[in-house]
């Protein structure tokens, strides 16, 4: 069954970043869901790992952080205990420790607090789209998708506009550290030993640490209270303030997690508009479709292809024994195309409801902190974009990132007719 990726014979190498330059290997995922839902992969660059590909299994396992821990690394790559200590964020802790940080940052990113940014986001969309649509042909990832999350990140961090391109460049180097377009230190292609203790194995991580430190000092000195982050720096109800180390780790995490994921959701949505021209009309008809559209676009995109856990005890799942210490990958990219959960999973249906996608890691304690912000940015961007268009079509083939971790369209040439 060829569903999406024409070059995927159903036996793609999940350890190879090159596999993903054609997009996620959906024929392989479909076969694994059907035949081998708890699949072992040997790996020549580290310990092998289990791949979980069914929606129901990921949901069941993700809610048990005591059995499947985040505290030994959340990517495929092995990580020593020293490395973990040197660069972990609260994303790499388990409850109850995880909750101690999560409750400190939760309010700043909660739905009601984020909702107050809708007008700001709309104003940014106005600026970005007015500028992008001056051209009839352009790269939509660069001109649109990259812009909005970057500019919003500035609002969150309370950083000067002028610093934003630098910050985004560093964030990209952290996350897309396997694509030569985004880093000089391609993770699997050179000896990154010197960077082992740095956040995300990358000198960009060290630079961001330094930036965060200076930002925090500057804010304290000048009494600058700009940005959502300020909510976190201020004493909470219990008088607790986030520590400097916590702040720096959190800052890096935001730059890394809050940027390219939203970018690639927007890019995937624009790509969908190109390939399903009826979407533009549905968006323009408006109304209830905006209650559901953002989640469907984010399901379609699935920018976080997987996150990893490590088993803390021997467990049997579908007849396979996962041993204590084994790495377990939750492939959200597969779960979001699971035909037992989604009708016609390879079609974008803006009215899809319910839409129990797992793009945000739903079902577990690490569920995306930024999901309300991401949903709001995606909705407002497409509301504003669709208003301004008569048509949009591909102006050439699109290109995916070289990464088995972040799924994203890094180049998206489009041709538009403005309204």
């Amino acid at each position: 069954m060829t569903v999406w990726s024409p070059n995927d014979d159903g036996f793609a190498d999940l350890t190879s970043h090159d596999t993903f330059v054609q997009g996620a290997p959906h024929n392989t995922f479909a076969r694994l869901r059907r035949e081998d839902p708890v699949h072992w992969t040997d790996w020549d660059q580290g310990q092998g790992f289990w791949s979980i590909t069914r929606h129901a299994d990921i949901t069941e396992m993700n809610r048990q952080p005591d059995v499947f821990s985040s505290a030994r690394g959340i990517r495929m790559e092995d990580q020593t205990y020293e490395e973990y200590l040197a660069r972990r964020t609260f994303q790499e802790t388990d409850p109850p420790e995880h909750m101690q940080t999560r409750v400190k940052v939760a309010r700043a990113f909660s739905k009601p607090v984020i909702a107050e940014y809708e007008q700001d986001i709309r104003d940014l969309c106005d600026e970005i789209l007015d500028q992008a649509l001056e051209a009839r042909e352009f790269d939509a990832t660069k001109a649109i998708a990259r812009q909005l999350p970057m500019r919003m990140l500035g609002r969150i961090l309370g950083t000067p506009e002028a610093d934003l391109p630098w910050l985004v460049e560093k964030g990209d180097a952290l996350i897309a550290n396997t694509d030569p377009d985004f880093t000089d230190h391609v993770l699997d292609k050179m000896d990154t030993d010197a960077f082992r203790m740095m956040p995300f194995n990358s000198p960009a991580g060290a630079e961001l640490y330094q930036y965060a430190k200076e930002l925090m000092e500057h804010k304290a000195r000048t009494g600058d209270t700009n940005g959502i982050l300020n909510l976190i720096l201020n004493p909470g109800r219990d008088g607790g303030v986030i520590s400097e180390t916590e702040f720096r780790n959190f800052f890096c995490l935001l730059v890394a997690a809050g940027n390219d994921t939203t970018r690639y959701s927007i890019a995937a949505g624009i790509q969908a508009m190109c390939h399903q021209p009826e979407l533009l009309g549905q968006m323009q008809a408006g109304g209830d479709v905006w209650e559901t559209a953002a989640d469907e676009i984010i399901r379609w995109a699935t920018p976080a292809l997987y996150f990893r856990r490590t088993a803390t005890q021997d467990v049997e799942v579908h007849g396979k024994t996962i041993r204590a210490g084994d790495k377990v990958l939750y492939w959200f990219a597969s779960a979001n195309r699971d035909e037992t959960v989604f009708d016609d999973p390879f079609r974008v249906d803006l009215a899809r409801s319910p839409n129990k996608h797992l793009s945000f890691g739903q079902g577990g304690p690490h569920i995306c902190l930024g999901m309300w912000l991401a949903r709001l940015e995606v909705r407002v961007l497409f509301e504003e974009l669709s208003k301004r268009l008569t048509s949009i079509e591909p102006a050439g083939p699109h290109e995916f990132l070289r990464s088995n971790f972040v799924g994203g369209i890094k180049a998206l040439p489009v041709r538009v007719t403005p309204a």
Partner: protein
Amino acid sequence: MKVTWKLPDGSEISADVAEGLSMMEAAVAQNVPGVVGECGGNLSCATCHVQVAEPWAARVGGPDDFEDAMLDTVEAARGPGSRLSCQIRASADLDGLVLIVPEA
């Protein structure tokens, strides 16, 4: 045990809930609108907010510190009986429990 959810539009949903299940899991199983439970009961999403109706509030008890902090992030206004329903487990002594789903 029997549980009733009162919805903002005035309608009600009632169900028998097996001992040990959380009120979030029960609500999701019954498709109670407004109770989403996106973090699987891990106290990280606050999308399972309900208000415990009188006279049940005392018997159900109040939130612990983490839940209390997460209740400050809910979409609908927080009220005196507010709880995150993934933290309330079905048990025989709560038979007849009434939960109010607040308007978002």
